């Protein structure tokens, strides 16, 4: 426990090293000059547009007069991008839901909280959040799921879809390597079929075709159908990542676990899965990030997710003509979220590494 990490060289030393590397040899000098020229060409006009000429408050006329970036537009539409079409008077409900969701996700990122209590917290909070959004209980006005929107619905779909998809993915991955032919065939078929079609067509099936096949009188809420489709899709992709981890385990691990008399469940839970999941963390996070960004596809079936609210805002007759600002804002939000995930995964990976390994 007393292992001391080698101290990083001081900032001054690193900066000097960097500067030397920039001018070591003709090729590096050339690259340095090119990069500086590129920056000199691109940065001043961008700063001029994004900061100096920008309008931070006021209306569209003020923006057009100033000629720079119209951040007033983002300011005007910010809460719309968070809550979407949710009734204005009830916006505190998705706000509270988002706070709960973020708090739970943040708590779940700490390994010291990974225990039974966390599972219970999720099991209690998930229905509470959904009830808070849907209403109809405790004097809350009912709000149809088709009105849920913005960051609130993007967050819900992503978190619920990925959280339920992950255990399903583990089962599918184990199923695909199972000795029982039926289980193996079923898992393989499901994974291959779901991976074989684009998410957009799965969503389309869930939203529009599925009701045609359901018996009369049976109806599943559209948002539930969408989350189900998204869950199955994410499970299929994640299952293959996990299977990669399972296959990378040396045969000796399986045999050793069997030799000490562990049952199948114990072998997987205690020996194989912890290692298989750890070595596939980079691939898993890669898939997570991809799937998270895929939530924007729900627009095809009329769900107003975060990105869609911005595109809707672009059509406001009072604020026509600021697509650059809207897309930059969307890019910024997605970058922050995805980059956070990526940094978190690196931290997690390090914390799983055996002592002394580099």
């Amino acid at each position, binding site marked *: 426990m007393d292992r001391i990490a080698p101290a990083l060289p001081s900032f001054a030393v690193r900066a000097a090293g960097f500067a030397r590397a920039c001018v070591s040899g003709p090729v590096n000098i050339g690259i340095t000059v090119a990069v500086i020229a590129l920056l000199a060409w691109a940065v001043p006009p961008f700063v001029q547009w994004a900061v100096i000429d920008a309008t931070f408050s006021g209306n569209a006329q003020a923006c057009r007069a100033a000629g720079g970036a119209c951040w007033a537009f983002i300011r*005007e*539409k910010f*809460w*719309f991008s968070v*809550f*979407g*079409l*949710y*009734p*204005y008077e009830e916006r505190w409900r998705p706000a509270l839901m988002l706070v709960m969701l973020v708090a739970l996700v943040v708590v779940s990122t700490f390994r010291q909280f990974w225990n039974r209590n966390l599972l219970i917290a999720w099991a209690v909070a998930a229905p509470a959040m959904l009830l808070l959004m849907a209403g109809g209980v405790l004097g809350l006005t009912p709000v*149809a799921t*088709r*009105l849920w*929107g913005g960051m609130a619905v993007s967050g819900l779909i992503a978190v619920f879809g990925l959280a339920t998809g992950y255990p399903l993915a583990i089962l599918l991955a184990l199923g695909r390597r199972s000795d029982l032919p039926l289980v193996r065939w079923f898992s393989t078929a499901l994974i291959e079929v779901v991976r074989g079609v684009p998410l957009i067509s799965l969503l*389309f099936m869930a*939203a*529009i*075709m599925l*009701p*045609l096949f359901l018996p*009369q009188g049976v109806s599943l809420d*559209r948002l539930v159908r969408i989350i189900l489709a998204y869950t199955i899709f994410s499970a299929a992709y994640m299952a293959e990542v996990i299977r990669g981890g399972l296959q990378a385990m040396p045969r000796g691990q399986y045999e050793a676990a069997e030799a000490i008399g562990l049952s199948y469940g114990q072998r997987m839970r205690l020996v194989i899965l912890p290692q298989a999941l750890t070595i596939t963390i980079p691939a898993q996070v890669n898939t997570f990030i991809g799937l998270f960004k895929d939530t924007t596809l729900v*627009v*095809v*079936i*009329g769900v*107003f997710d975060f990105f*869609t*609210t911005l*595109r*809707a*805002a*672009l*059509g*406001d*007759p*009072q604020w*026509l*003509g600021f*697509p650059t600002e809207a897309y930059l804002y969307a890019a910024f939000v997605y970058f922050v979220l995805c980059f956070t995930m990526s940094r978190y995964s690196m931290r997690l990976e390090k914390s799983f590494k055996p002592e002394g390994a580099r």
Partner: protein
Amino acid sequence: MKVLSIVAAAAATFVLSAEPALAGRDLDQIKQRGTVRCGVQGPSNPGFGVPDSQGRWGGFNVEICRAIAITIFNDPAKVEFVPVTTQSRFPALSAGEVDVLSNNTTWTLTRDTNVNRFNFPAIVFYDGQAIMIPRRLNVASARQLDGATVCVQPGTTTELNIADFFRANNLRFTPVVIADLDELRRAYDSGRCDVFTNDFAALAAQRTLLTRPADHVILPERLSKEPLAVTIRQGDEELTNLVAWTVFALIDAEEMGITQANVEQLAGSSTDPRIRRLLGVEGNMGESIGAARGDYARTIIRSFGNYGEIFERHIGVNTPLALERGQNAIWTRGGLLYAPPAR
């Protein structure tokens, strides 16, 4: 034998219960649910249907839906807006996700008949492909555009129509094809082409985004017919009537000079039998179409005004879209809007 007959009976019951051709089934379903589900163009369609910063829908097509809700329920709030895309609108309507499409859908033969089986009870907006040019070109007709460079979106009927138009008139042109509408507008704005073509309403919206909108004119020629109509599933005559006469009431009201401001006064004092019938003071027009109340038209006009008022409020000359009435004027003023008489 007995088993077989039971199976046959069960099958017969199933087939009978699945029989869809009951008159008024869509309207019954709407009434049972207590709201009409209206498909509007998502994410947004400037002036026609767009959520504001507080998430409330507004716009020309949106008010048509609210008017339909008044006719059915006497309550403009009993409508659920379902955003649909150009890809999802028809499957959504077929599957019953929406009852009514009010999203600038063009009425065409294939959509009306065997392929999709929809009904188009009433046209609410006459659109058509138009041509925009800089005012300085000093051109009055598209026929003077020989040798022009034309900004057009690729792979659309728009592209085919413009080619047809130039060929039919023995004119030469150079197309500049760019898929993204914003990019296309910038190309036109920077002078890369002399002509910008698109559907009239879309073109007018694009004009507002140019550096100097006033320096550009939209020529009077229409290269195609795009009658935009409210769309419902085929097979419900009652709903068809109800939607049609909601739109007709708006048009008739404008023709008769009934406005949001004077509707109550006219309902009280007018002696014109046409006005009295339309506003439900006499006759039974409301009952005939199955409206919630006989004076549904009066409520609609009190809430939103006549066709012209709705038009001017959302897409007319004083809005950012700045659409002139043109073909969408009442027939007595040279437009195409012509509603059958309410009698």
